[in-house]
């Protein structure tokens, strides 16, 4: 049921992309996957259902996404805005305590955070270090 987190020669964390929009989640996934190659398990929880365009976030979908990439080394959740965070919190509460401890909600902006986290996760960096890299985007000036 749970994806193996042992990829190649080292263990890497998993990533979950949470967005109100399934299309946005898919687009962010494509960016992140290009940075990570096949080194990192990345799952999506976008919109309220797979094939509809209803915007929103759903804790059960987020929970399923966590379980798809869950591993001992940890799972980092990246959310877009507002209720995405609340739904992610509820999803974590639905996880068994032992698994919840290895999950972390990131304060990083979604696009920058996913790109940065995917690359640094693929380098085998631990959960907290990957999140620190992603959250650094909060204070990084885009315009130089």
């Amino acid at each position, binding site marked *: 049921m749970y994806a193996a987190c042992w990829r190649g020669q080292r263990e890497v964390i998993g990533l979950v992309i949470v967005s109100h929009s399934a299309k946005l989640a898919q687009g962010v996934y494509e960016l992140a996957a290009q940075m990570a190659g096949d080194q990192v398990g990345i799952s999506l929880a976008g919109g309220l259902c797979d094939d509809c365009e209803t915007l929103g976030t759903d804790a059960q979908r987020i929970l399923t996404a966590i379980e798809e990439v869950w591993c001992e080394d940890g799972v980092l959740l990246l959310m877009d805005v507002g209720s995405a965070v609340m739904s992610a919190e509820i999803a974590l509460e639905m996880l068994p305590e032992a698994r919840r401890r290895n999950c972390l909600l990131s304060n990083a902006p979604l696009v920058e955070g996913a790109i940065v986290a995917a690359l640094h996760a693929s380098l085998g960096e631990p959960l907290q270090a990957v999140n620190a890299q992603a959250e*650094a985007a909060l204070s990084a000036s885009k315009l130089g």
Partner: protein
Amino acid sequence: MNRSQEPQRRASEDRLENQLDSSAGQLPDHDGRTPSAGGSGTAALPTSLGGERGDGVTDVEASTHPQSRSVVVTVTDPRGLHLRSGRDVVRTASRFQSQITASNLSRNTSAVDLKSILQLMQLQARQGHDLKLAASGPDAVAAIDALCSLF
């Protein structure tokens, strides 16, 4: 950033070195990129410590000891240093133990950690920009050699 002060200290040490780096000619080729791309852009740089290698890379602190090395490379990609090429730079830099920094001389940026994609993107490097790469550590020479071929 603490490490940004180190190249200055090393630069003074390297001035004691009279010999240019004899290994410069062994660097990897640039996969068909125009060798003259860095010509005018590197003319004002302190080449007295190194030399034009004929491949768009100018040695600034050519040193025979492996603890430190820095070079200036010119971005040749028409799209500049974009996300995918930045990914490859970070991946390569991360293979080495040395501390590796880069600054964009054309934009007068401060030195950033080349093992961080976020910091790398802040260089805002466009085609023709000169980047100074500096490595410090046990595999500094190998790190710079590997990175040079990516620009």
